[in-house]
């Protein structure tokens, strides 16, 4: 009897989880299917089979410049986030000073702070300071969002590394920089890489910041797509979406190979 109940539990779990996986993948697959539809309006089921929407968007200067801008911003903000995030993570993981937990809380607080509000506040200050270059402003905003992810990923990795190895290197005469470069960095490399790829992907798809900081000349991908939704109704939108999905999922696979998506995306160490 109890064996049967266990069987039932297993089946229930399998069917339920299967249903959730379909729920998760459904919008991505419907978008993919619609992008090949040979019709002028997006309506299910897709009609015929064509790649002309891809030909159209891959020659669309608006889409390509948005992609290029998002790529540039994601790359730039990842570099900036690494430059300020790795030293901060070192200090938080290795330092022993009063107020360390409070400071860590402040540094990680942009993770739960409503991003829409952070972006609005930033826009006000930047425009008051007379900063009108949308690309620079977007870079600052994206770095603000990406940096805490880097700090978190690197801090987590550092806590797994034996600090005694660093002390040994110092005792043997290496200075702080050499110790970091030759002893610490090789060990935390997967964490740094995961943080970097995650920061890149978050920046590539940042809408709340872009909403405030972009202007008509410089619109990153999510903002451009959002505006297109109101004015374009043919399958070029699903085609653009599919390009974005493929880029994002390739990034996810890279993270999975490096450290595992589950670890990289976890909010706790």
């Amino acid at each position, binding site marked *: 009897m109890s064996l049967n*109940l266990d069987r039932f539990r297993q089946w229930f*779990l399998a069917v339920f989880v299967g249903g959730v996986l379909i729920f998760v993948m459904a919008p991505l697959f419907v978008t993919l299917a619609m992008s090949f539809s040979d019709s002028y309006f997006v309506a299910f089921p897709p009609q015929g089979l064509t790649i002309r929407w891809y030909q159209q968007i891959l020659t669309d200067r608006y889409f390509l410049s948005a992609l290029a801008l998002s790529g540039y911003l994601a790359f730039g903000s990842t570099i900036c986030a690494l430059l300020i995030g790795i030293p901060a993570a070192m200090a938080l993981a290795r330092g022993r000073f009063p107020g360390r937990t409070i400071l860590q809380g402040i540094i990680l607080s942009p993770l739960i702070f409503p991003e829409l*509000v952070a972006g609005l506040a930033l826009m006000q*200050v930047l425009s008051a300071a007379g900063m009108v270059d949308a690309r620079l402003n977007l870079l600052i905003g994206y770095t603000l969002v990406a940096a805490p992810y880097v700090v978190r990923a690197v801090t987590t990795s550092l806590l797994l590394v034996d600090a005694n190895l660093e002390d040994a290197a110092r005792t043997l005469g290496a200075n702080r920089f050499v110790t970091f470069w030759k002893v610490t960095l090789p060990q935390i490399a997967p964490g740094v890489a995961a943080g970097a790829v995650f920061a890149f992907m978050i920046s590539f798809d940042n809408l709340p910041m872009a909403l405030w900081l972009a202007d008509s000349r410089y619109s990153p991908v999510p903002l451009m797509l*959002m505006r297109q939704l109101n004015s374009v109704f043919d399958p070029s939108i699903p085609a653009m979406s599919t390009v974005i999905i493929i880029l994002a999922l390739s990034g996810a696979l890279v993270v999975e190979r490096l450290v595992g998506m*589950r670890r990289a995306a976890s909010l706790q160490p």
Partner: protein
Amino acid sequence: MLVLLLPMTLFLLLFFLLPAINLLGYSIQTQNAQGIIGAPLTLAHFAKFFTVDLYLRVLWNTLRISFWTCIYTALLAYPVAIAIVSARPTLSRVISLIVIAPLVVSVVVRAYGWQLILMAGPGGALNWLLLSIGVISEPLSLLYTPTAVVIGQVHVNLPMMVLPLAAAIGKIDPNLRDAARTLGAPWWEVFLRVTLPLSMPGLVAGVIIVFSLTAGAFVTPVVLGGPSALMLGNLIEQQIFTVFDWPFGAVISFILIFIVILLNTTLIRFVESRKFRRAQA
């Protein structure tokens, strides 16, 4: 060591803390006809928020949508988290990859995918499916309702709930479940009396993230909700870009931050409270 913190701290101070304080300060200042913000100090903008029906309805919408998103996300996430913890390694990795990977796909794209599925008329994917297998005879109109926003938000936030739950369930000693089962408890009782209470820290962590992200959502309400499911984030955008009323935009921002911080501190205090600890022990 402290020198290492300098760049990050300076950056946050300049581009996060000071701007946030400055913006919140606007909420009690006055904007004159030229758009300049300053004295006199006033609480009139807060009074306006809490006396106009439209704004209260948006606040209520936001709380309601965030609440139901948390409930449904948790209901979907528990079985998935249990499966990730208890399945064979390869299967577990596949499940977690499929559930977590969409996290990096643009929220705009995912909301758009749901628009295609929920679209009214026979051209929506869900209507097409249900009509062709004969479950319904008239197409449903789910799009541009609060329900559609909840569906989109559950999809967007599911990984944020699965991750902390799987981490918490993974830490539970399997012997506890086996003991309960040996003593004759049916599986649902094992869940309610062992797994659920012991995974509470994970659930709370998930609820904090999901509620905070949903309360501050912007994309899904626009793409899936339409005018009937306006949320606080959309109201902020309207006040700044359409009405140019900065103090009132600051008031709505203040209320949004207040909700998020209140939820955070209350739930964290609940997990750390002694009564709860004793109940767990």
